[in-house]
């Protein structure tokens, strides 16, 4: 599979010269499977340019895997070209909730006063799926989802194809209430998704000092994400969900800190950035 990052920012789109190297678009990753299927991870503002790029070769089917319904993960969907194409078979997967179906939770976002068009009037007539508790097939890959620690219903995903695995946990605070150094792995949120992944794309929003005054907000510090990746034995770590207040220079400082924490294998960790392509084969 090939993953292309169209948005790596968290919380709020942050375009401008100070974020030009890693980009200001919010979370979106296109995963192109071996059989030609397209899986899209989250619908932050990065999904808009993805849709434009697909104009020349519109896929017959799109599977959009949403981790949760915070705005930076759904706000771009309204401007995703295939969403407005009645010929596209559109499937939206998202976190389960004990209280309301996924469609009912998303619908207010597609209705006045927030948007002029109702979800029921979207031409592609999307089909909604709450992620199943067991792995399921998506094209030539197998997808898995688990609830992970983040306020409200939120999941992470794992995409496996030909023995390779991509794990995507963009908003995740595994250290909340858990000592990542000492906890048995079965008690660590997200461990099952990330375990031995070839590529782990993980929340790295805060420095440790920032985290210390934002405990419970659902995100991780540099130290925590590195420790989580170590415990999960992820082969490669992409720092993701960059804070909207962090400039490119600031992000490179975070990367340097992460690499200091992995002195034996500093290249194992990189910053996720717009336009980055990952061949996971």
């Amino acid at each position: 599979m090939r993953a292309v990052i169209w948005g790596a920012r968290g919380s709020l789109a942050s375009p401008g010269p100070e974020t030009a190297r890693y980009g200001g678009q919010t979370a979106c990753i296109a995963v192109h499977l071996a059989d030609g299927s397209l899986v899209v991870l989250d619908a932050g503002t990065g999904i808009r340019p993805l849709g434009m790029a697909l104009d020349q070769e519109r896929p017959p089917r799109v599977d959009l895997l949403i981790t949760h319904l915070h705005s930076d993960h759904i706000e771009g969907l309204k401007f995703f070209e295939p969403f407005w194409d009645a010929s596209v078979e559109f499937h939206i997967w998202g976190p389960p909730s004990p209280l309301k179906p996924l469609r009912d939770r998303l619908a207010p976002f597609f209705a006045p006063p927030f948007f002029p068009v109702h979800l029921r009037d979207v031409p592609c007539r999307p089909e909604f799926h709450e992620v199943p508790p067991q792995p399921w097939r998506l094209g030539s890959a197998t997808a898995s989802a688990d609830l992970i620690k983040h306020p409200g219903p939120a999941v992470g995903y794992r995409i496996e194809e030909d023995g390779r695995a991509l794990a995507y946990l963009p908003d995740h605070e595994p250290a909340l209430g858990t000592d990542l150094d000492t906890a048995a792995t079965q008690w660590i949120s997200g461990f099952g998704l990330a375990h031995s992944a070839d590529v782990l794309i993980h929340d790295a929003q805060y420095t440790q000092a920032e985290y210390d005054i934002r405990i419970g907000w659902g995100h991780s510090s540099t130290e925590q994400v590195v420790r989580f990746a170590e415990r999960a034995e992820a082969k490669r770590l992409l720092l993701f969900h960059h804070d909207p207040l962090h400039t490119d220079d600031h992000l490179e400082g975070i990367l340097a800190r992460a690499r200091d924490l992995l002195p034996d294998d500093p290249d194992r960790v990189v910053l996720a950035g717009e336009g980055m392509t990952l061949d996971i084969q």
Partner: protein
Amino acid sequence: MRDRGQQWNLVLILARDLVSRLTTAAFVVDADGTLIYFNEAAEPLLGRTYAEAGELRAGEWATEWNPTDEDGRPIPLAELPLGIAFGERREAHRSFRIARPDGAERAIAVTAIPLFARADELVGALAVFWEDRRPGGG
């Protein structure tokens, strides 16, 4: 059950995180009724640490502490609050007596609630319990 054999469902992880910080005794069981955690506050009542007890299947913990009613009759698993919570998927409360491994008897009150990851997916149950010091408690 563990997700793909590696990790508990998040609802159970959160339940354990909460229970581990309570000063009230509490149990967590999985969807099969296996006891997967009890906190430090439970140790004086149960007479064992979780490290000593480890995971116990439903049939084991239901008899480990020999729960009995006010007349001294054993209470079957299906009539214990936790048994009701994961077996019937509903809240339950009851007072009864237990015997610790050292033979000491305790009157306890137990409230148990089912834990759902989604409306139709029971992943376990949680019970809080305390020594019932009322006259005739248990």
